[in-house]
């Protein structure tokens, strides 16, 4: 429907153009006053010179009107008949330009009775002395559209053919490029995984060496000093010094264990979550921070969920120790059987709520995406002077 209307509009526009060209270029130069006055000889001359040029396929009839009536028609029936201009024709004759009227929309006359389904287009022209005339042509829009189709169809085939050819040529190239991109992506992923594995292995080796070497040695030294401190006959001063040295060694051991946990996180298991979290807060005492861990109901969680809790707690505790200037840190894990909740709360300096998104601060951005990927929710509440609370919720069924 829309296409048909568009085709009609295009056909009408083309018919108007044809009519204007014929009027200005063919009929215009042949106009004489004698023709307007009705001289039969002048009509013969006009017809002789113009009729061949009016032989346009889509043009079925040509009339030439003055204000008094038809002064020429290539349809002999119409010549010297008493016809009157319509209102639309008179308007164009007086004001100039081009107008049109569908033959089916106007009263029938001998002039139009054989012109069903056509459109009458009229253009004003003038004789050399300025007498206005109306050049009128009868056009079949259907014929114009068919002619346009005849003209454009070969071009359409060319365009579609070119597109198909282009598609045929490009498809193998796209397939090759896609395959190359996929292969490169897989290779990059493999290299990244290998790099991570190598890094993890190196961390594991360092942690194992520290644990089996320095940590064991320090533990042995601590036991020896403790045993020496219990020897009878020692002066109080020496015994006190030995106890102090032993305590210092134990503090160092705690720090080392916390460092080991950072270098290579332990394989977290749900039932060991409490002791793993305790290792995280071990450095707090050396900083004069009172830290506590409370875990209830974590046994129902999976090891993966426990590892997620441990990682978020690790990041939150690390931030609290480094930036919060807190005096207490409380790590709490509890579960109602459906949701596992971690809260890390400190009483430190906090930060402004209108600062950068809290979840993006202090390395928690990575944690946020990790939590989202695991189906959990991470929230950080803080304000200046009010401390910080990090809360993780993860569904146990998730």
């Amino acid at each position, binding site marked *: 429907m829309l296409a048909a209307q568009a085709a009609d509009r295009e056909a009408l526009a083309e018919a108007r153009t044809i009519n204007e060209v014929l009027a200005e270029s063919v009929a215009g130069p042949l106009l004489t006053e004698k023709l307007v006055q009705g001289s039969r000889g002048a009509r013969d001359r006009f*017809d*002789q010179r113009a009729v061949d040029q009016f032989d346009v396929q889509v043009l079925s009839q040509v009339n030439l009107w003055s204000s008094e009536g038809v002064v020429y028609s290539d349809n002999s029936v119409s*010549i010297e008949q008493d016809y009157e201009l319509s209102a639309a024709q008179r308007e164009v004759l007086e004001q100039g330009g081009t107008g049109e009227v569908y033959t089916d929309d106007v009263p029938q006359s001998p002039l139009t009775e054989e012109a069903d389904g056509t459109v009458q287009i009229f253009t004003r022209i003038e004789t050399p002395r300025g007498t206005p005339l109306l050049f009128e042509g009868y056009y079949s829009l259907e014929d114009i559209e068919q002619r346009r189709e005849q003209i454009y169809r070969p071009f359409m085939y060319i365009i579609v053919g070119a597109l198909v050819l282009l598609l045929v040529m490009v498809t193998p190239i796209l397939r090759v490029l896609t395959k190359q991109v996929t292969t490169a992506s897989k290779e990059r992923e493999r290299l990244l995984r290998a790099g991570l594995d190598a890094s993890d292995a190196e961390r594991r080796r360092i942690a194992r060496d520290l644990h089996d070497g320095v940590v064991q040695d320090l533990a042995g030294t601590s036991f020896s000093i403790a045993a020496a401190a219990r020897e009878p006959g020692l002066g109080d001063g020496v015994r006190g010094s030995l106890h102090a040295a032993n305590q210092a060694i134990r503090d160092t051991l705690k720090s080392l264990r916390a460092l080991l946990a950072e270098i290579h996180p332990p394989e977290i298991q749900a039932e060991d979550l409490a002791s793993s979290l305790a290792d995280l807060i071990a450095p707090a005492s050396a900083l004069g921070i009172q830290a506590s861990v409370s875990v209830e109901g974590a046994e129902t969680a999976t090891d993966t969920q426990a590892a997620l809790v441990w990682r978020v707690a690790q990041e939150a505790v690390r931030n609290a120790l480094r930036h919060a200037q807190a005096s207490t840190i409380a790590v709490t894990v509890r579960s109602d059987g459906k949701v596992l909740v971690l809260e890390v709360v400190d009483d430190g300096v906090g930060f402004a709520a209108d600062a950068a998104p809290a979840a993006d601060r202090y390395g928690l951005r990575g944690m946020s995406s990790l939590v989202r990927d695991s189906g959990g929710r991470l929230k950080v509440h803080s304000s200046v002077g009010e401390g910080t609370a990090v809360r993780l919720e993860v569904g146990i069924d998730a």
Partner: protein
Amino acid sequence: MSPRSLLVVTLSSVLGAAALATAPFAVAGDDDGVARGACSQNAFKRLRVVPDGNGRFDVIGVVWSNDDDLWDWRMTHDGDLSFKGEVRADGDSDRSFRIKRSMLDFPGIDNIAFKAENNRTGETCFVKVDDF
């Protein structure tokens, strides 16, 4: 000469003269309008009007003058000058010159005339088809 031979010669002469008299003129159709005759001196003239079935006439004016002079010619339609021109006759051809034009077939009767004038001798040929 025997009476039989005399009859043959007489018939041959009559038929030959008739053939010569009609040879320059084409055969006209039933719907055609044709007028012909002698010009003011030695030439012959003919005007033929043929409807083309498309609201027009083919109007054909011919002059046999047996010269190669320059002739002015004109065609009128109901007294209005429709066409005019100048043509040089070709004495070696069957027809000296032939003018063909198309005229509109107006409602009612059409009167069509053809006139030619020899620029050198002043001979005139005027022929018309009335009430066509």
